[in-house]
């Protein structure tokens, strides 16, 4: 065990994967000698050479196109998109190519070995284009997996699992936790299962569900609610696609209430899928409407960032509204 922040945990996962398998290659804008603008790929080029860790030209569609071809060839690319806000030029390569490659070829070819890493999320004074949480766009894409860690331990274990999983994985790193979240991380190799949610705290009155950096927020809100005698069950979804409906449904059947929190705008955010599925799975158990605490349906505004964010206070108020419905 070592104390690591999330960046160090990501770096440790990459070193582990590249050491174990020489087919693993890491690339993207500024990831080479410089080690990435957040330094998640520090020292990889030194350790593994320029052929296996390298800068690309500045083109996200090119990075993912290149990565798709590399994956189909049999290598194991780990491509970085510098900010999730800049993943959209690669949307076609991801949605029409990465995700459909295996299906369209009847399983003859695939991009299963591909992992795409990208920092996402707000709370860092980034305004419109350094704050977005685009997971819902990708949740509508059969063939992809989407994973979001909430702390350094998860970051390493889930990233290693993502790299080794034989499906393309979008690995979204909550950048406001990069240095803020510090914890014990095994130095050795380990993986955590994809597609599994984690019940972080048991409770009886309401289920609170989030992922990534918003886990802190719902935990804080739960602590406030417990002062009022409200017992919250807290779940980290961990994987957005495929998501662990059964764990969530089991919890909601117990508590009778569900609140989902995410940073992305509310309309057609991933909370809507969860709400739609859970009202179906738990219809007779629900004691109040499933509640979504989300970003506003606006671009991400710098000056009003605090007001925009689905923070612990908004969550706490929503918990009370649910419980006193």
């Amino acid at each position, binding site marked *: 065990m070592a104390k690591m922040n999330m960046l160090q945990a990501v770096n440790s996962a990459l070193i582990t994967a590249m050491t174990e398998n020489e087919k693993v290659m890491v690339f993207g804008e500024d990831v080479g000698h410089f080690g990435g603008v957040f330094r998640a790929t520090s020292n990889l080029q030194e350790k593994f050479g320029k052929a296996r860790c390298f800068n690309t*030209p500045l*083109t996200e569609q090119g990075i993912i*196109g290149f990565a798709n*071809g590399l994956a189909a060839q049999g290598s194991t690319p780990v491509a970085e998109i510098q900010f999730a806000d800049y993943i959209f030029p690669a949307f*076609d390569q991801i949605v029409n*190519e990465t995700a459909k490659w295996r299906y369209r*070829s009847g399983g003859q*070819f695939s991009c299963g070995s591909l992992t795409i890493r990208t920092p996402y999320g707000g709370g860092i004074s980034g305004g419109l284009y350094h704050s977005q949480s685009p997971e819902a766009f990708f949740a509508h894409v059969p063939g992809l997996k989407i994973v979001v860690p909430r702390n350094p331990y998860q970051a390493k274990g889930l990233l290693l699992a993502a790299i080794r999983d034989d499906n393309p994985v979008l690995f979204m790193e909550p950048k406001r936790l990069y240095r803020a979240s510090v914890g014990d991380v095994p130095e050795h190799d380990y993986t955590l299962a994809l*597609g599994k949610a984690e019940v972080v705290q048991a409770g009886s009155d309401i289920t609170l569900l989030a992922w990534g950096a918003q886990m802190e927020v719902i935990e804080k809100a739960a602590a406030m609610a417990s002062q009022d005698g409200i017992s919250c069950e807290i779940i980290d979804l961990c994987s957005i696609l495929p998501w662990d409906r059964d764990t969530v449904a089991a919890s909601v059947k117990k508590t009778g209430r569900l609140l989902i929190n995410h940073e992305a705008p509310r309309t057609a955010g991933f909370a809507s899928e969860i709400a739609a599925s859970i009202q179906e799975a738990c219809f007779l158990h629900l004691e109040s409407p499933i509640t979504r605490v989300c970003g506003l349906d606006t671009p991400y505004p710098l000056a009003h960032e605090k007001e925009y964010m689905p923070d612990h206070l908004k969550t706490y108020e929503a918990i009370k509204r649910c419980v006193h419905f």
Partner: protein
Amino acid sequence: MKDRNHLSNVGLTNQVEVISNGLLDIPMVQLLQADGSLHGDATLPDMSEELAKKILHTMQYIRILDERMVAAQRQGRISFYLACTGEEASTIGSAAALEPQDMIMSQYREQGALAFRGFTTEQFMNQMFSNEKELNKGRQMPIHYGVKDLNFMTISSPLGTQIPQASGYAYGQKMAGVPAVTICYFGEGAASEGDFHAGMNMAAVLNCPVIFLCRNNGYAISTPSEEQFAGDGIASRGIGYGIKTIRVDGNDVMAVYAATAKARQIALTEHCPVLIEAMTYRLAAHSTSDDPTGYRSKDEEERWRAKDPVQRFAAWMQSKGWYNEEESKAHIEQTRQEVLSQLKQVEKVPVCHINEIINDVYDTPPWHLKEQLAELKAHIAKYPEAYPKTAGRL
């Protein structure tokens, strides 16, 4: 190529020089003249009689397949087809210069390359009838071939996407240390996509052993090349990327073969991309959904029909004494028969089992897909007559 540092070796001028057409005037390699005779000062590439015959036979084969399948589509037997008439030399001549381990990533009008690799008539038919024998399980429209054993990547419809993919594939080959290159085919229309730029530039910077072969056939559906770009074709772009470039007569199979052989050698030994622009003409309609009379003249078509690549090569073969009229006729007749009989047989093969609807989305189907399949099967069982292709086998 130049030293890449952004200011080293830049010359100076003290006048405001506007550079326009002055610098570029890229010539086109032609070895055989329109009548099939060799240009006086040209040197032929090394080509055995056997290879020459295989090339000619593949050209004849694909032309017949195209004719028959266009007819089959008109008869409503298949939903869609796309012929390559007039462009056989570009794809077959280039495929002939490759090794079997080289990966082919094509656009969709490269059935000639696929036939050259040994794809059988039955395999073509299986794909076009989307049946259960189809290697890709019948999920895409007709003409979206793909076959792993022949190193022919499954075609996808979105244009240009295969260009950066080919760069990545070739990089992987280089890293794996295999003596193989990737060839990437695309049209001059697809070359307008952003992915073209990304793929070419990355290949150049990352030293990928990939051959980019642009079929500049004058049209992208109805859009003529003069509404597609304003420069000196696609070749001039290669120079901008620092990519070695060859412009070739796409209707001269000998020139295409020689150019591709050269390109392959460069790509493999120098670890770098090469761009080939094959100047040709889409004599066919864009596809069976298209009618070119709406946007071009018969006259233009006739001028190009006169440059027919198959006849040109046959004439050269004849001059070598390698062409046997009888043999050729027999081959053509046999191909016709084979196509027709396969068509009849393959038509009867059923589509894949309904279980396949959820396979290959992931390596193994997750819970939600299993649920959806179970629901679907129960539903089909309730209304078998509404789902005749699959209800018989649940």
